[in-house]
């Protein structure tokens, strides 16, 4: 990696001040470092300054009460996975957190880092390949090897968003608190992520001088049912070929409301309105769940090597629906 200076953060004001005016890549934030370190070592990122967020007080806790969850951005993935309230009432989130990478990575990787991690695309991660995402002319996956790439929302960059936590949190209706030089704002996590058509270079709307500080999840209802399913080629560590976060409010066997968010198949966590429509107001059975799966992928546009993801995603959605509601 290139040399950089290292600053231990003392306050959010100091962090946003250090970030301002530098643009992307000059000053970068590090918490667990499980993603960023690899990018530094591969020279994909070459910041001049790294700000260590781990020294910020009070950003690594989980508050669970009647108003829902407040999870600090520095909370580790492992702490989310093993939190009793999350396990019992926000099952999809605990399952998603537990599926991340390996115990070692879950123990240091943070919520904020997981949401803001960069794509795993093998063209993007290669220093010598100047792809569209890095300001080049083409997305090499289009005519190249695309087994692990997007089937939805790709154009013009066919990376997939690698986060497991994001689909689960979006399905739970989470919002994200962001602090910038002008103060704090809160937005829905769904709106936080963007597609390459809007911005081919970034995966979310964060400005270079902003920082994610907290994720808020509305309270779970007594009739909430949820499940996270992740398909991968190897048990661990492996990123998702496709994943599904499914959250339902049930009245007996009938689905009152549905939230279905896909991971690993699109450049952002992909909310499947089509699947939700297919489920909402219906008695959940095999046929309904199959219809939801089929609807979830009806707009899929696979590349040369990833048509299998259409079938896989379709089947995962159906299965997640049955697992969540049974």
């Amino acid at each position, binding site marked *: *990696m*290139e*040399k950089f200076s290292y600053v231990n953060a003392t306050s959010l004001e100091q962090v946003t001040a250090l970030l301002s005016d530098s643009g992307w890549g000059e000053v970068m934030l590090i918490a667990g470092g499980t993603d960023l370190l690899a990018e530094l070592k591969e020279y994909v990122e070459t910041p001049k300054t790294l700000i260590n967020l781990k020294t910020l007080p009070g950003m690594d806790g989980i508050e669970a009460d009647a108003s829902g969850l407040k999870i600090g951005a520095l909370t580790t993935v492992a702490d989310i996975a093993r939190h009793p309230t999350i396990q019992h009432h926000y099952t999809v989130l605990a399952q998603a957190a537990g599926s991340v990478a390996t115990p070692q990575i879950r123990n240091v990787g943070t919520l904020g880092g997981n949401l803001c991690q960069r794509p*795993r695309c*093998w*063209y993007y991660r*290669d220093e*010598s*390949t100047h792809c569209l995402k890095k300001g080049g002319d083409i997305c*090499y996956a289009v*005519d*190249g*090897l695309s*087994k*692990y790439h997007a089937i939805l929302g790709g154009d013009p960059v066919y990376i997939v968003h690698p986060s497991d936590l994001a689909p689960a949190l979006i399905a739970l209706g989470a919002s994200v608190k962001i602090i910038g030089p002008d103060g704090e704002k809160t937005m829905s996590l769904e709106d936080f992520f963007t597609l390459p058509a809007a911005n081919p270079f970034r995966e979310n709307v964060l400005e270079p001088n902003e920082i994610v500080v907290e994720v808020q999840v509305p309270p779970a209802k007594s009739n909430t049912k949820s499940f996270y399913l992740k*398909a991968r*080629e*190897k*048990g*661990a*560590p*492996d*990123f998702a*070929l496709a994943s599904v976060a499914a959250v339902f409010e049930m009245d007996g066997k009938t689905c009152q409301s549905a939230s279905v968010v896909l991971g690993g198949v699109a450049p952002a966590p992909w909310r499947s309105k089509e699947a939700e429509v297919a489920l909402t107001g219906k008695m959940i059975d095999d046929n309904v769940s199959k219809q939801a799966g089929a609807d979830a992928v009806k707009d899929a546009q696979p590349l040369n*090597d*990833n*048509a*299998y*993801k259409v*079938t*896989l995603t379709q*089947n*995962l959605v*159906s*299965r997640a629906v049955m697992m969540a509601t049974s």
Partner: protein
Amino acid sequence: MASWGEASESRLIGKRIPRLSGRDKVTGKAKYTFDINRPGLLYGRILRSEIAHANVVGVDLSEAEALPGVKAVIQIVEVGKKIRYQGQEIAAVAAETDDIAKDAIRLIRVDLEELPYVVTEADAMADGAPQIRDDWAGNQSDPNVREAGDLEGGFAQAAVEVEATYHAPVQTHVCLETHGHVAEWEDEQNLTVWASTQGVFGVRNDLAGSFNLPANQVRVITEHMGGGFGSKFGPGVEGRTAADLARISGRPVKLMLTRKAEHLVAGNRPSMTQHVRAGATSDGRLIAYDMKGHGTGGISSGAGFQAPYVYHVPNLRTEKVNVAVNVGNQRAMRAPGHPQGAFAMDSLMDELAEKLGMNPLEFRRINDPSEVRQAQYTLGAQEIGWHRRNNLPGSGEGIKKRGMGVGSGLWGGGGGPSTQARVSINSDGTVEAVTGTQDIGTGIRTAIAIIVAEEFGLAPTDITVRVGDSAPGLPSGGSGGSQTTASVAPVIKTAAAAAKQKLFERVAPQLEAPVEDLRVGNRTIYVVSDRTKTIKWELATGQLGMESISEGGNWDEELRQGGVAGTQFAEVEIDTQTGAIRVIKIVAVQDCGLAINRLTTESQINGGVIMGLGQALLEERFMDAETGRMLNANLEDYKVPGTFEIPEIKSIVFDTHRKVTGVGEPPCIPTPGAIANAVYNAIGVRIRELPITPDKILTALAEKKA
């Protein structure tokens, strides 16, 4: 005539003995080349080409040389020469820290004139492909053709025929410890190198030649080694570079390959594609086999594979060509040519058996000339529960479907006369065995201790075994071809016997008995005809004084034997909705002759099965045609088995005789074929390309449905 004696007479040989270095390995006390740190150590790094084919126009080292902390910079490729693959060495540096070395190689300015490249076989074989080797016409070698019997006559007798294409992609070795060396010059004429190698003496001789030194002035040490699988026989460019950097800087230099370089330049198993048409008679005899195939070993040749394999075919024609691509060279990889050949052959056998309406195991019994494997089929089938297998492939109920398959293999492993060794008895009663072989993780160190301890009535932990060092001047061959144990064991055995004889000669007069009547056990020498006459081991050796006993051994044909057969059975479960494949159980029945240490033999079989499972389900090198680069030169997207992938492995040491045979390689051979056949049996769709990944399962199931 020398022999290993009867099993009933063996106290240690053939038993399950924990490896002597186990404790050191799990506590981290064991020092691998990566762990060697010398006073004044510098760190070496190599600058490699990211372009697959280019003319070298200029190399400017000046900025790197000027970087503070840099102690040596060398140019490896000459201006005017060609770069032929990604990863090819351009220049190297040695610096005070690894970080400085990394910075320094990025300051080397390289002017490359890019040439057209081809990195996939399809592109290399296409009409109008750029020619990438000067010594071939086109990118394909002359075909290697073999014919036997009467092919058309054979097909005329066939009741059924199968025509199919089988493919296995390039696999890389993925040595846990990457290739590398620590090189240190004592003076201008004496070089010591710690090497991660399978051949201590091979590295010594190569470096002696490279630096024009007498061989005995180069010392090579490999105390512990983190995996080679056939890829670590010489110092390679990186070893010579480490020694050169150390020579120029006058400081010791450590130069280990990065994981990326390991994938790119440290060898690989060539790919295999075979188009085969084969026929069998109505009574189940394989009668005709016509195969046209190709593979790539990178820019070099060497992409051979076994076809046909194991089973007898009287009428055949095979034609193989090597395809050159702008990619790093192949090297021998655990049973070169066999696992991929076995995968294709065992898949073909099952396809033919199905057309005949015959149980695939019965079809094998008819066509397999090996009596050993015939017995293994029976044992393996019992162990896996072959009777539970789907009679109709894909007929299992539910979303998750199970199936069983079988595969076979053969290997040599008989060793050869290439080892010198000494066994010494010191006056304090300690015993040493010294030889220039190397323990590449297979446990030869422990095997040597077992053989010597057996001879002397001692415990394996009583024996000091010195291996992995060229300094004693007792050469042994490289550890390849599963030859190590069969080469070393006879020499150690005869050396130990000779040393014992000398000791007996010393004490025979005191015991008033002829030497032939003396025996040793429980740290006591006794007279077999009069057990009241004894002398304690330490008392006997104490009389040696300064004249310790030290005896050499000799190669003895009678103590070893080559040629092994193996059979494996696999049971798998497939999730037909996700394509996920779980191997439930592998039964590996491995012929091996006398297992000196049954425990490490079982470990060897376990390791082979795991490697075969990786080839079957996960491993594939992805080359990008557009950029000419490997896309998964890491361990994230080049996937090897992890704990979740490991099934129940039933390793059966099938010892058919009491002569030593190596089994380093053969246990990885039958696994991919057995798994592929089990997949077919589970879902009724045949996957003819390795690795069998969820995408292929889902695609095949969708095609079947459609």
